[in-house]
């Protein structure tokens, strides 16, 4: 479980970003739009990353090459 902490580290990073975005959002009429857009984007992107990361944390299958011979010729 060497990398098991990565999602939590990511979570902290996103939380810091969100807090920063909340306060750094430009004042004025569009403040709500700035805040919601930045926060939601960060959360959505984090979610997708973390799902992808977790899916590969303990994979049940490993890649199997196909078309081995031609690969060898090109690669070799």
């Amino acid at each position, binding site marked *: 479980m060497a990398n098991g902490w990565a999602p939590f580290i990511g979570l902290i990073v996103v939380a810091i970003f969100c807090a920063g975005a909340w306060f750094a959002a430009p004042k004025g009429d569009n403040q709500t739009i700035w805040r919601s857009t930045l926060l939601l984007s960060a959360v*959505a992107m984090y979610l997708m990353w973390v*799902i*992808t990361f977790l899916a590969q*944390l303990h994979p049940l299958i*490993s*890649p*199997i090459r196909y078309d*081995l011979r031609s690969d060898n010729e090109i690669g070799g």
Partner: protein
Amino acid sequence: MAPTKDTMFRSADMSLTQLYISNEIGREVVSALGELGVMDFRDLNSETSAFQRTFTQEIRRLDNAERQLRYFHAQMDKAGITMRSIYDFNNPFTAPSASEIDELSDKSQSLENRVSSLNESYEQLKKREVELTEWRWVLREAGGFFDRARGQTEEIRHSLDEDDAPLLQDVEQNGQGEAAADRSFSVMNIGFVAGVIPRERIAAFERILWRTLRGNLYMNQSEIPEPIINPENNEEVSKNVFIIFAHGKDIIAKIRKISESLGADLYSVDENSELRRDQIREVNTRLSDLASVLRNTKSTLDAELTAISRNLAAWMVIIKKEKATYETLNKFSYDHQRKTLIAEAWAPTNSLGLIKSTLQDVNDRAGLSVPTIVNQIKTTKTPPTFFKSNRFTVGFQTIIDAYGTIKYREVNPALPAIVTFPFFFAVMFGDMGHGIILLAASLAMIYYEKRLLRSKLDELFSMIFYGRYIVFMMGLFSIYTGALYCDMFSKELPLFKSMWEWNDNGNGGIGPGSHRVEGYTYPFGLDWRWHDTDNDLLFSNSYKMKLSILLGWCHMTFSLVWSLVNARYFHTPIDIWGNFVPGMIFFQSIFGYLSFTIVYKWCVDWAARGINPPSLLNMLILMFLQPGTLENPEEPLYQGQATIQVILLMMALVCVPVLLFLKPMYLRWEHNKARALGYRGIGENTRVSALDDDDDEGQLLNGGGRESFGDDEDGIAMITQDIGHGEDHEEFEFSEVMIHQVIHTIEFCLNCVSHTASYLRLWALSLAHQRLSIVLWEMTMKIAFGFTGITGSIIMVAVFYMWFVLTVVVLCVMEGTSAMLHSLRLHWVEAMSKHFMGDGIPFEPFSFKTLLEEDPVE
């Protein structure tokens, strides 16, 4: 009550305002408010027809002026003069004074007279010219006929004696003596008719003549090489010249009649060749005279139109605004005694200050001592929904509005949709390269925004241009999801060290299998080594399917929470306890649990435990069909799995009756309590008295009700309160509430299942997109890489262009459209069904800006 700041989260706070405007400045006030564009005027004369309203005369006059301007425009189009663009004016939006409008309408009247008279004379001259041209052709062609025909007089006479001889025996036999030629046709009592007829009628003409005259004629015709232009509609018609010789006056008259009825124009031709030559000369001089007159008329007309074209756009804008102003004024109620206009309008509470200062300005300018009075009225009517949108948000707001008008002050789904809509698109469209193309296209559209806004775009492109900021967000997220999927134009992106290494196969090569780099997980996105492997799809399908379920769960939970926010805002706790809480528990105990098991299964190192991971799908099915049993009881997902699943299922089942009965029962209880205390709705009372046939009482109730706030002793109609009854006081009907709740419950429970499944479209579309781009690469670029040398490079260039065009057209435009539609569906159906009420009234302010946008002057 301090007005709060309006945000996109909820629609703006509106107030119903009443304006008392002095009659003299009514026009100026309304036109100033039109420039402001923040007031939605209510029609206070809805029962009067359009003709009975106060300002019908003015509107009729402006209609006439508008028609004249359109006439100028049509004439300019005909003459090929372009109008000076509306964007070339410094400020076409200044409000004109009433006298300027009068001046303008007078001017356009006189200009119309002038232009139309010029036009009329031009058309008449043109017609004359056509006639003369035709005559010239007849004279020219007829000369030939005469020469030929004269040679045959002998024969004609011969044939007259012999009845059975064919009339047209030998047309080409010309070489007969001149002696015969001297004999005139008139001697032989042979008459002739010459003229011009459209070419497509010539066959019919010939046939009819032949049949009616039983062949007693001699006809000659020839084609006019150049088409004749009809001045009425500027169409080209090809025509033929004909000349018909026949015997006897009656027959000649008959021929004339037939040819006129078939649309032929007859011209007089002299049979004497000398006279004919004179005629031709005369026609030619008249033609050249006519041409110079025509030229003059044309240039005068063009000069007139060019002068008009310089100001036409501004005039059109002015007239359009003026007409809209009077149409709005017609919605006002007019107090004849006090010379006051009374208007009612919805306006954002935050704009009231602006409105007041604008009205003050108008008053000061007019120098009127009587101020315009602005009243705020308290009302039970539902205010219209209004969001102040900007260039960025308008596209997203339109997406939501297309589904339904948001209820006044409810949570606006467009705000989260700014992110979730393009994000779900990107999950389906995930490819870094395609994302870059989208981003570049949208950036170009944003950069050239001003120029594109002014130019005329075709329908498809204007739609894309309207959503340029949506495309921008889509591009950004597609680049991100493409990086996570590790796809760029279907090729891998080796950003980091792979977590897989190929096995040695013993004889120096690298083997079909692979092993994991110990303790290392690929940090960002899918490992690129999965590309082009045998079991690539096996892995990515499982990953993307679970990704879809998890994202769907997040999105639906997120949307469901908005129903809590709405219930709290509208102070309806029964919606929280009767709808939100049981719904949330139901959803979470089934699909929340599914999401949990997905993540849990990922987090467990099954190989280290030495047991086979259980199948989640079978687990879920068994959870319903045989609660308490597991597929493989020796190898559970976790300890106590069976018990927890039974508890969760029980929780979900308990929630169904709560969802079904709590809200209707509570409403019934509340209603009965209110009745017991003696409260009754107004509408209810009236109905009861009507049922009792107690007319007097009913009228008294009705009339009294209206009198108290409707009429005052001077007969000023304050129309606000008495409209809209029955609208707010709905009668409580338990059966209706119950049926509604039953439908809601069934829908909610079934939808939890079907909507979760519906999010699998994220997987399906992203799979389709990836496969399609792989196929495209393999069919084009991969083949082209096989060639070498000069031919190789030529093929490469050609194939590259083909590949690129197909990528843009098929993968970006077509696939993008389909992904966008699916994302749209996920928002409209899957997300918005969880919280959206959507029974609002759209805010339609009286605004010159929107007026000109809807009906642009160009």
